[in-house]
């Protein structure tokens, strides 16, 4: 199978063609980083998630959050479900852990904004 993707390791944005099989073959890359990028994207794509969490007793209704490290891309929607379930209680500081080790990924969901009590 051949997968098309755009390398985002530099502004050039090479269009890569990646042959996925026993060995991963990359073409279209103008430098080595493109190959690395493509291999990672095929074997273990990861992303940071940013979203919001409902706040109780705060001066704002929501607090923005992020995962403090990258999580597997195919778990984005499952983790969003966890993020949507939880409530945070004010006051909240930047970096406060809202969900620890979310779904066993090793990543914490942490607050990215400061919320004062109401």
């Amino acid at each position, binding site marked *: 199978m051949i997968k098309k993707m755009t390398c985002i390791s530099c502004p050039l944005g090479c269009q890569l063609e990646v042959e996925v099989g026993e060995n991963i073959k990359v073409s279209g890359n103008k430098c080595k980083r493109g190959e690395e990028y493509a291999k990672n994207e095929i074997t273990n794509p990861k992303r940071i998630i940013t979203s*919001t*969490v*409902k706040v109780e007793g705060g001066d704002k209704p*929501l607090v923005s959050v992020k995962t403090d490290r990258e999580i597997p891309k195919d778990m984005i929607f499952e983790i969003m479900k966890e993020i*949507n379930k939880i409530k945070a209680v004010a006051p909240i500081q930047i970096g406060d852990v809202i969900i620890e080790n979310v779904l066993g990924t090793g990543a914490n969901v942490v607050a990215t904004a400061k919320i004062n009590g109401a």
Partner: protein
Amino acid sequence: MSENEKREVLKINPIYGRIICRCEHITEGDIVSAIRRPLGARSVDGVKRRVRAGMGRCQGGFCMPRVVEILARELNIPPTEVKKSDEGSFILTGKTK
């Protein structure tokens, strides 16, 4: 209102000191009074027709979310029930959380 009149009104009601529509310089006081007056505004377009909030160069891009908030508060309804104009012209489709 002229600047002098504004100064007078402000002493009585501070919400005339909060600009909601920055393009047309319309205050929260202007909007609240457009809602509370007899046959007052019941929708975003209603507010726009009465006090010009949303008629400016940004076409409400900046003030519309704030007008929705004020309408919800003044009419005592959730923001999801605030309409743009007629029945059915709802602006928000639900809560995210």
